[in-house]
């Protein structure tokens, strides 16, 4: 499809210094979103600030509704999406959780709204720093969920996110997660695409016969009995499974328009070619993780780093194929799952589960770090590599989970 169209000369209109939040707001402008609902909570707030300015400056024609709470905010975009309006909202931390009822129904109603989650520690204590449990709350609800690591990636994944979410084979809401402060509020030079290039990549939103309109009489989400629910869940299950293929397609076409931006859709590997030990993590921890990796490589250590981007759908096959090449995998969790099996973090459970069918599994160890915005330093990451390397020979589960960065 894309290949047959003429190649666009200018895919970028300009370069500007933008925070992660501002980069997302530029992408929302470029995606020509129709309805935005807003309710402030840091660190998401900067997105709504930036969007209101874009609209006031006449750069985007959209309904901008300030809700009375996150619950109403999420209900507004859900309903807007059902009448075929491309909709955007976002939140952070406990605000995200406050609207949880609306988040769950948006997934069941298969409405492809895109939400920004500026990751923030869940209260209490009231804190502002990054922790991934907020976004993770939707992981089992029929959502698309991905983490980005730079403002440029954030901008691009709003576009990729809408494309995947709105695809007829998928039609799932998308949570785009970004580390609070470290990405939402860090200013970097960002290349802003042209509208022409974006139009070529992102088709208009079309719900087809699912559109709620007097000319298309349907009823969405009626009260049902026990004889309905399981079939609907089965549909959701299938959509989430189909999403993997649609994601791959989307990256292929993104690269066709914007140049080879992404070599792999679901995760990015760094120095893994001949590695025997790797760390895997979500979000900005990849920055110190990769630098630590580079330093250890200079000393001859065979280490690598895997930055996982897509958490839902989880890239089971791809990640299994990738990780089976290594002797040891250290899973870095910026989240917690108290009382879970082996008391590890959420990401560890997912990775370990994906590796279970392998005959020769790499040794797995788990690191919990960076909670509530605690710094993760390069030295911390070097320690994580050491722990993962040790796990190759030490399989005692006593040391399975290591907390790094906690005062002890």
């Amino acid at each position, binding site marked *: 499809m894309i290949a047959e169209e003429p190649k666009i000369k200018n895919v970028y209109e300009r370069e500007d*210094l933008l925070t992660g939040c501002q980069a997302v707001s530029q992408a929302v402008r470029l995606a020509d979103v129709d309805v935005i609902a807003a309710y402030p909570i*840091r*660190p998401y707030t900067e997105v709504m600030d930036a969007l209101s300015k874009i609209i006031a400056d006449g750069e985007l024609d959209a309904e901008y509704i300030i809700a009375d709470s996150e619950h109403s905010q999420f209900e507004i975009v859900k309903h807007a999406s059902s009448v075929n309006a491309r909709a955007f909202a976002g939140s952070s931390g406990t605000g995200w959780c406050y609207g949880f009822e609306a988040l769950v129904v948006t997934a069941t109603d298969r409405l492809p709204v895109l939400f920004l989650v500026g990751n923030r520690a869940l209260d*209490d*204590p009231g804190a*502002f*720093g990054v922790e991934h449990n907020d976004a993770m709350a939707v992981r089992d609800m029929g959502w698309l969920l991905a983490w980005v690591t*730079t403002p440029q990636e954030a901008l691009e994944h709003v576009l990729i996110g809408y494309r995947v979410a709105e695809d007829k084979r998928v039609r799932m809401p998308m949570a785009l997660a970004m*580390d*609070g*402060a*470290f990405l939402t*509020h*860090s*200013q*970097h*030079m960002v290349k802003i695409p042209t509208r022409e290039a974006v139009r070529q990549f992102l088709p208009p939103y079309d719900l087809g016969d699912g559109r709620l309109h007097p000319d298309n009489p349907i009823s969405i989400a009626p009260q049902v009995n026990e004889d309905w629910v399981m079939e609907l869940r089965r549909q959701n299950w299938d959509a989430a499974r189909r999403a993997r293929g649609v994601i791959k397609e989307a990256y292929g076409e993104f690269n066709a328009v914007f140049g080879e931006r992404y070599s792999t859709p679901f995760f990015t590997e760094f120095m893994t070619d001949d590695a025997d030990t790797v760390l895997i993590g979500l979000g*900005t*921890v990849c*920055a*110190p*993780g*990769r*630098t630590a990796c*580079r330093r250890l490589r200079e000393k001859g250590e065979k280490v690598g780093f895997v930055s996982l981007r897509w958490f839902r759908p989880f890239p089971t096959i791809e990640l299994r194929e990738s990780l089976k090449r290594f002797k040891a995998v250290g899973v870095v969790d910026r989240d917690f799952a108290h009382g879970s099996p082996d008391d590890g973090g959420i990401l560890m459970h997912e990775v370990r589960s994906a590796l279970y069918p392998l005959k020769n599994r790499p040794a797995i160890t788990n690191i919990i770090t960076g909670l509530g*915005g605690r*710094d*993760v*330093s*390069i030295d911390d990451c070097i320690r994580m590599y050491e722990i993962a390397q040790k796990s190759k020979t030490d399989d005692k589960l006593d040391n399975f989970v290591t907390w790094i960065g*906690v*005062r*002890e």
Partner: protein
Amino acid sequence: MIKRVEINYRGIFQKNLGKKIGSDIVIIASGMGRIGFSNGRYSDSPERNGIPCKYFAFVSHDLSEEELEAECGAKLDIDQCDISVVLDDTMIKGVEPWGWHGVRPINEKVQPGGTLLVVTKKSQDELLQFIAKKPYSWKLATYSGDLSFGGLWVFRDDLTHEKTLGAVAGIDPDIIGIEAVEKYLNHKTPKEPARAEAARQAYDEVRKSVRTVKPGEGVEWKHEIPVLPKWFQFMEGAAVPAVKRHFELGPKGQSRNETFKRGTTKNQRPVVRFDLCTKCTLCWLECPDQCFDQTSDGLYDIAFEYCTGCNKCAQACPVNECIVMVDELQFTDDSSPWDAYKANPQKYTEWAEEKKRKGRYIHPMVTGTGLEFVEGELVPFGGKRAGQKT
């Protein structure tokens, strides 16, 4: 190679200024083919009026953006810097942005050979009376400018922003070059050559003014840096012990929170003429930080470690010349003014008038004329007791 710039600014009043400087350092460096990014110390926000905050800019010639990000990004604060910019000279008395943080020296992060860059009208010798000594040599540079205070949504366009860019270029051309600063400003506002000229002037000024501060030069730092509890030392359930209530008459008679004093928030402090006081209690009542202590004679002492310089007491005081706000750099300690008055009323009053004469604080007008020190009315000791403010 990494260059780190730290920008110390006053919360809310200089929020836009601090961010604008950080952003423009990156944009200018990027125009020179360098890699950079900028961020703030996130914990500083939401800011309170006047509280010391920080913004950062990082520049490299040879690292990729990802490597630079790994070294400098995703961190709460930096470990050291090449340049620490100070946008209000009263912050050299120390900075305490949050509870359990302690009052830190302004040059804490200045690395060996690094520069503390202060916009001020004071001499460098005056500034060094307040700045902590270090075990290694570092540099102090100043450029002339008035206090540039705006508001949450207001940026005071008084050329402090341009001057600071020029001053940074003057200290370290590996961060940004002065020609690139001029080119950027002239390109952005082609009809306003005064902006690039202001940058060039500050550039020349800091190159002349920069001096090396030797190891041990400066003051002994008397504020303790708190040690935070380990995970097993906390109370369970996110509970924190509170300050035990206690009250008695006299200076510092009421119990206060030792872990967050907030005194470094002020850039001005009230000077009280106890001889003119009518004991109306309004200062004590109006003070939002409960800094006034009741004393046995009905006068009110002030706990300056807790005073944020908000000016409410001076506004509330009905007596002419009784409470006057004075530039914070006129004072070297936080000792009790009531004690000094009781020891020698005449001498205290002379001291108070001297402080008022040298440092009476006038709020800068929106015209950007800046901080002014003007002579007030001299009220003789014990005289004009019930004089009303006009």
